[in-house]
């Protein structure tokens, strides 16, 4: 058996290496993509991990610590558990983008200076940079991953509960290192309304018992406090990881499918070409079972080699990515054992499918098998006896271009789906910001003290008091925020887009927003009546009320440059938030980053596979048609003419495949959308970018194919057919 394999390896090293290479590529891609999902899980688990070291008992208060709750809790700690060393803390949460739209919030504990060493000891952390904070300030020390991820210096931090970030709430004076992600600050960092509570320390096993008992006590005494400890932390982690593992599984499944299709086609070609070999082996006494075992062993060796290479390459890429991609985004690289095991799906399925493929051939009788080795004609040959166009004859009557055709359909479908989802997401965020293209909303807690400078007021077309509603719009993947200004009936006339007589209680919307609201995609909107205004475009809306809280100013202007001036002024004035054109530009970047990355990886991955399939197909087709090239040349067709024939065939196969993939996917998408996506906002699937991407990549595959064909045809000697 080994001798036979060695002979096979020597005879067809190129094909075997291509097979191993494609397996390795699939495995490494799969590993890298799923690691992104796992890194979210790992990073969040570092945050949740803090609750394995201690129990956090916390309550919400609008006016500092609540003495009655504090006393009740202390009583429980001392009387029930005999714990007198609980640490009183106040808690703030800082959020940061893990990557793109995925976020994590971690706690910053306001704590007495004297308790810091104990907390660090319990969490196995240490202060890696900076000095200890001063009491009565907003100075904090945070995990170093946050500093890397937020791209903020040690002197400014965003409390990022929403996109409207408030800069400078806290000042970072140092960083923490360790296996957990959290922050420390002086007591009182959460002033006024905020979270307050205690940290409860105990021995590992006892901590779980304390957490469970605390829960029942808290319920018994009707205290509105929440408890976070090892038990709840494990539950949270399990829940989070279930979704990450689902992500890993789906990613692997998808990437695997792409590669399994490619590998099975390579296998199919190989088996087809080796039918004569199998027929001869069968003729000299090898049973079908024996031949199947041979192929199984070959596939097993190739698959295993590819898998190992892929894992090594994937891990090498990951370690490269860790420094350049994960760490700078504040991401920890998760344990890739699960994703490594998932990658077995590629070689395993390919081996199983190869057995099915050879089984189909071996079912034929010996003569049939021998004869079939000469046949290269497709299933539909009898239907196309009258095709006049030479470019169509081979593609229609043979199965030579089948693999390329199927792949280009799959490729066009993928580009359509992912490209369009991405465009849809980007489009939705962009559309939601239409109203703010020439308007800025400035939010401030003290409007009466806030006045715009004259140079801005003079350039503005209107300045009116307004509130801002933040609404969630459900998207196919996640959600995005929609901002609707609320203006009083009195001031609404200053907004010409609302027409002459705006009515209080009316929500004025664009047609797009109207459809969204009717479909139920927008939540939390309260209004008496709704009216569609032709002046409003995209996803714009304004709510007119009798009375408003007047939390900010809505400034309208014609000169778009004024947005920058307003933003600068608001920033200098301090403690104000601005929603304008830039807010949406940042939102587009942030919210579509992850989707963009995944889409790009999948699109380019499939593109790469199509390129390989394209070159393999063209090479195979030309090798199989060497005789034909010779005959044509002997009969007087020049190499240019023959090259043109192949060019025409490739153009037809690729363009028909790409068009079929695009049209089929668009059709399926429309059906899917009408059946399953009602109530979800999907801006459009027919986007110019998709057509551009498909066209560009089809042309590239075509060029690569044509160059391959031209090189091979040039080397062909007309007499070789006879001499062979």
């Amino acid at each position, binding site marked *: 058996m080994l001798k036979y394999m060695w002979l096979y390896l020597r005879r067809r090293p190129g094909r075997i290496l291509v097979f191993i290479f494609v397996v390795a590529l699939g495995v490494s891609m799969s590993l890298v993509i799923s690691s992104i999902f796992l890194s979210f899980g790992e990073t969040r688990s570092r945050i949740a991990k803090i609750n394995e070291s201690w129990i956090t008992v916390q309550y919400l208060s609008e006016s500092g610590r609540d003495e009655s709750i504090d006393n009740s809790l202390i009583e429980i700690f001392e009387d029930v558990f005999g714990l007198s060393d609980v640490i009183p803390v106040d808690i703030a949460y800082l959020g940061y983008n893990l990557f793109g739209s995925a976020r994590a919030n971690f706690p910053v504990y306001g704590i007495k200076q004297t308790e810091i060493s104990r907390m660090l000891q319990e969490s196995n952390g240490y202060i890696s940079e900076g000095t200890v904070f001063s009491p009565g300030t907003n100075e904090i020390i945070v995990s170093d991953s946050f500093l890397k991820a937020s791209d903020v210096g040690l002197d400014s931090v965003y409390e990022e509960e929403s996109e409207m970030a408030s800069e400078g709430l806290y000042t970072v004076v140092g960083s923490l290192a360790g296996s957990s992600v959290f922050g420390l600050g002086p007591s009182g960092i959460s002033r006024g309304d905020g979270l307050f509570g205690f940290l409860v320390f105990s021995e590992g096993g006892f901590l779980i018992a304390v957490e469970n008992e605390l829960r029942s006590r808290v319920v018994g005494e009707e205290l509105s406090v929440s408890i976070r400890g090892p038990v709840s932390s494990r539950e949270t982690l399990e829940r989070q990881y279930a979704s990450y593992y689902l992500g890993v599984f789906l990613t692997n499944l998808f990437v695997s499918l792409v590669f399994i299709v490619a590998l099975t086609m390579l296998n199919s070609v190989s088996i087809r070409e080796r039918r004569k070999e199998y027929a001869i082996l069968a003729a000299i006494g090898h049973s079908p079972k024996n031949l199947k075992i041979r192929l199984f062993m070959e596939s097993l060796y190739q698959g295993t080699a590819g898998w190992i290479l892929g894992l090594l390459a994937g891990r090498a890429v990951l370690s490269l990515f860790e420094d350049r991609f994960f760490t700078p985004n504040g991401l920890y690289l998760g344990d890739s054992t699960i994703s490594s095991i998932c990658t077995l799906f590629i070689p395993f399925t390919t081996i199983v499918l190869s057995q099915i493929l050879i089984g189909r051939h071996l079912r034929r009788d010996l003569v049939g098998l021998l004869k079939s080795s000469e046949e290269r*004609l497709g299933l539909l*040959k009898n239907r196309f006896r*009258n095709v006049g166009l030479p470019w169509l004859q*081979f593609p229609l009557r043979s199965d030579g271009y089948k693999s390329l055709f199927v792949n280009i359909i799959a490729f066009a479908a993928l580009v359509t789906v992912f490209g369009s989802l991405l465009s849809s997401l980007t489009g939705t965020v962009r559309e939601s910001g239409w109203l703010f293209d020439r308007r800025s909303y400035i939010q401030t807690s003290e409007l009466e003290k806030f006045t715009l400078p004259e140079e801005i007021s003079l350039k503005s077309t209107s300045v009116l008091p307004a509130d801002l509603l933040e609404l969630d719009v459900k998207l196919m993947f996640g959600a995005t925020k929609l901002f609707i200004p609320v203006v009083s009936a009195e001031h609404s006339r200053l907004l010409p887009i609302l027409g002459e007589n705006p009515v209080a209680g009316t929500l004025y919307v664009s047609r797009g927003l109207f459809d969204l609201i009717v479909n139920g995609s927008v939540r939390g909107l309260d209004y008496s009546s709704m009216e569609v205004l032709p002046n409003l475009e995209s996803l714009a809306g304004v709510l007119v009320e009798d009375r408003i809280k007047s939390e900010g100013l809505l400034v309208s202007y014609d000169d778009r440059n004024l947005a920058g001036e307003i933003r600068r002024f608001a920033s200098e004035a301090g403690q104000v938030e601005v929603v304008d054109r830039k807010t949406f530009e940042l939102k587009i970047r942030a919210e579509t980053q992850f989707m963009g990355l995944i889409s790009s990886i999948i699109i380019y991955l499939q593109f790469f596979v199509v390129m390989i399939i394209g070159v393999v197909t063209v090479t195979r087709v030309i090798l199989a048609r060497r005789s034909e090239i010779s005959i044509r040349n*002997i009969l*007087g067709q*020049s190499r240019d003419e023959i090259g043109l024939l192949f060019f025409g065939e490739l153009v037809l196969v690729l363009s028909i495949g790409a068009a079929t993939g695009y049209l089929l996917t668009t059709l399926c998408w429309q059906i899917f959308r009408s059946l399953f996506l009602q109530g979800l906002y999907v801006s459009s699937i027919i986007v110019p970018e998709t057509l551009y991407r498909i066209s560009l990549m089809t042309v590239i595959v075509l060029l690569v194919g044509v160059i391959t064909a031209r090189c091979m045809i040039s080397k062909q000697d007309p007499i070789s057919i*006879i001499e062979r």
Partner: protein
Amino acid sequence: MFELKEVALIYETKKQALAALKSTDLKIEKGEEVGIFGPSGSGKSSLLFIMSTLKEPSRGEVKYEGKELTALTPSAKAELRRKEFGFVFQEHFLINHLTVRENILLPLKEKRGARKRLEEITTALGLNELLKRFPYELSLGQSQRVAVARALIAGPKVVFADEPTASLDDENGSRVIELLKSYCSKSGATLILVSHSFEIIGDFRRRLKVENGQVYEVGVNA
């Protein structure tokens, strides 16, 4: 029509040089019926390939109607083969995914106006019923007749036939030879036919024997 001066074909390997065709001088006139015979490996096919531009001689001049063939570009040679030459080989070399009709019309650049010519040839060769078939649906004899039709469809001035009967039975073999001779005598085309058997070319007007790369005139029939 053909004039060969000191034409030789030598295959050089690292160890030795092998002369497939030794220095040959040969003239073939328009409309001649030339039979070339000799044992396998004697160089007769090489002679045919050199005259038909399919092979470059190692040295010497090959002139066709006064034009030096070795000086032509590959495209010019292809054009010449398309316009002036017709080929029949031992194997039919039909293209498997093309129908009989498409295979026959392959040498024609301009397919318009070919219908009449196609009808004449396919009628003469008895191929009318087979036009929509694929080559793998034909017998060997039928395939070779299709190859003959393909060689003659463009009305070549020279027909090159390399062992056209080798894979056929006697009856089919004789039929193919008759078809080629009949076309050439009617159209005034030159027929250059190679065979390992003297019997096949016995009644040709001019016969050449090739042995060890050397070409000999055997005689001319009246």
